[in-house]
C-alpha cells in the first residue's frame, strides 16, 4: 500500500466513523425537534402549576402528573437502587461460583421480561392484597424493571476496579466491608451512576406497567396508598382522546418528560461528582 492510498483510506474511515457517531444522536435530535415543534405551544406556566381541566374547558395543565412521575420514579429508585447496587457488589465480589452465575442469568432473563408482565406481577403482589391501585404498586413495578439494569452495570463496574487497589487497602489493615465501601465503590462511582441514570430514564417513560398499578389520577397526590398520576399515563390518555387541545398537551407532556430525564441525569452527575475520577 502506498503512502497515498494509506492516507486516503485513513481519511475515509475517519469520516465514516464520524458519520456513524452523528447518526447515533440524530434520532434524539429529530425526536426533540419534533416534540418542540408540536408541543412547545402548549407549554406555559399553567401547564406546570394546574390540574387538568374537564373536557371542553380550555387551559389546565399536567402538574399532578409531573409530581406523580417524580414521586413514582423517586420511590422506585429508593426501592430498587440499594438492592441493585448491593446485589451487583455481591455478584462481583463473591467467591462462590454457582450462586452468582444463577443470579446473573436470572437478572438477564428479568431484563427481557416485557414491562407489562412486570405490571401484572406488581398487580398481583401489591394491588390485590391492598384491594386498591396505588403509587406504591406503581413504584414496585418500576423498581423491578430497574433492578436487573442496576445489578448488571454495578457488577461490571465493580469488576473493573483493579484488584491491586483492593489488595493495597486490605494490606493497610482495612476490613473487607470498608474496602468495598470506601475504596471499591468510590472508584466505580462514575460508571455506576451512568447505569443508574440509564435505569431511571428507562422507567421514567414506562407506561404499560403503570396502567393497572398506579392507575392514574386527575387530582393532586393523595398518599402513597392511593392511585397516582404519571406523565406517561396522562400522555397516553390525552393522545388517544379525540380533542385537538388534548393532543397538543400530550406533545407538551412528552417534551417535559424528556426534559425531566435530562435534568435529573445532569443533576445526578454534578451532585455525585468526585474530585478525582475512577473507572468510567
Amino acid at each position, binding site marked *: 500500500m502506498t503512502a497515498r492510498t494509506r492516507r486516503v483510506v485513513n481519511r475515509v474511515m475517519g469520516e465514516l466513523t464520524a458519520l456513524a457517531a452523528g447518526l447515533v444522536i440524530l434520532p434524539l435530535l429529530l425526536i426533540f425537534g419534533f416534540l418542540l415543534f408540536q408541543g412547545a405551544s402548549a407549554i406555559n406556566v399553567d401547564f406546570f402549576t394546574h390540574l387538568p381541566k374537564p373536557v371542553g374547558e380550555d387551559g389546565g395543565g399536567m402538574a399532578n402528573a409531573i409530581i406523580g412521575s417524580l414521586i413514582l420514579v423517586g420511590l422506585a429508585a429508593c426501592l430498587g437502587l440499594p438492592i441493585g447496587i448491593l446485589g451487583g457488589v455481591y455478584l462481583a465480589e463473591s*467467591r462462590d461460583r454457582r450462586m452468582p452465575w444463577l443470579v446473573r442469568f436470572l437478572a438477564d432473563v428479568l431484563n427481557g421480561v416485557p414491562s407489562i408482565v412486570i405490571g401484572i406481577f406488581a398487580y398481583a403482589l401489591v394491588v390485590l392484597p391492598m384491594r386498591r391501585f396505588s403509587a406504591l404498586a406503581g413504584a414496585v413495578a418500576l423498581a423491578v424493571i430497574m433492578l436487573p439494569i442496576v445489578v448488571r452495570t454495578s457488577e461490571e463496574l465493580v469488576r473493573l476496579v*483493579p484488584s*491491586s*487497589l483492593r*489488595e*493495597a*487497602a*486490605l*494490606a*493497610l*489493615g*482495612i*476490613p473487607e466491608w*470498608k474496602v468495598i465501601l*470506601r*475504596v471499591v465503590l*468510590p*472508584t466505580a*462511582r462514575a460508571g455506576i451512576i451512568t447505569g443508574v441514570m440509564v435505569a431511571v430514564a428507562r422507567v421514567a417513560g414506562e407506561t404499560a406497567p403503570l396502567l393497572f398499578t398506579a392507575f392514574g389520577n386527575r387530582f393532586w397526590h393523595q398518599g402513597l396508598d392511593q392511585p397516582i398520576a404519571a406523565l406517561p399515563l396522562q400522555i397516553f390518555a390525552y393522545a388517544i382522546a379525540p380533542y385537538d387541545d388534548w393532543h397538543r398537551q400530550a406533545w407538551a407532556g412528552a417534551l417535559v418528560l424528556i426534559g425531566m430525564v435530562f435534568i435529573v441525569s445532569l443533576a445526578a452527575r454534578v451532585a455525585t461528582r*468526585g*474530585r*478525582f*475520577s*475512577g473507572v468510567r
Partner: protein
Amino acid sequence: MVDGIQVTGVNAWFGSVHVLKGIDLAMAPKAVTAIIGPSGCGKSTFIRCLNRMHEVVPEARVSGTVLVEGEDVYAAGVDPVQVRRRIGMVFQRPNPFPTMSVFDNVAAGLRLAGIRRRADLQEAVERALRQAALWDEVKDGLDKSGTSLSGGQQQRLCIARALAVDPAVLLMDEPCSALDPIATARIEELILELRGALTIVIVTHNMQQAARVSEATAFFLMGELVEFGVTRELFTNPRDKRTEDYITGRFG
C-alpha cells in the same frame, strides 16, 4: 518478647499446587532482609504469608507458624485485619487510590482505623511523607490526585501510606520493578534510611539491589529455601551450588 519475624514450617498452596515447602526463616528486627530467586520460586507468596494476604486469593491455603514480634499471626482467634495493621506492604506497581488526594491516600489507613481529628491526621501525614522522602515534593499539592504524581513519586506515596499507620514491619514486593533507575535509587536510599526504624523484608529480582540494601539474604528456588545468611557472605561465598549458579547468572 522475641523481636523480628520467626517463620517455622510454613507451607503454602494455590489449590492443589504446593508453592512453598516447609520454610524456616528468622528475620532480624529493625534490619533489612532480602528475598531473591527466579520468577515463580514463591518469594512473593512467602511475604504474603507474613501478613496473611496469601489467603485473600481464592483457594489459597497456608500452614505453619509465623511469629511477628513474638505473636503467632496464624493462631486461632487472631483477626487478619489486626495483623495487617502492624505489617505494612508495598506492591510491585504503585497503586495509590485513584479517587483520593495525596493527603487522603496517606491518611486512608488512619481514617479507616477510626482516627478523625484533623490535627492528628495532619501530623501523621506529614511525618509519613517525610519518612518516605516525598514531603518536599508534594507539600504544596497535598489536595492533588494521588495518580497525578510520577511513577516513582507514586511508589513513595504508597510507602508513606504504609508507614502512616506506624507498622512494626514493612513488606516490599519488588517495589522498584516498575521504576526507572533514578526512582529506584531514591527508593533504595529510603530503605537505608528506614533501616533501624522497622523490620523490612524486600523481595527483589535485582541481586545488586539485594546486595546494596540488605543485611541478610534468603535464596528461594522452586518453593524451597535454599540458603539464608549474611548478605555479603551469601554473595561472595555461597555455601550451596545452586545459590552460586544463580548469583553468577548461570541460570534463572
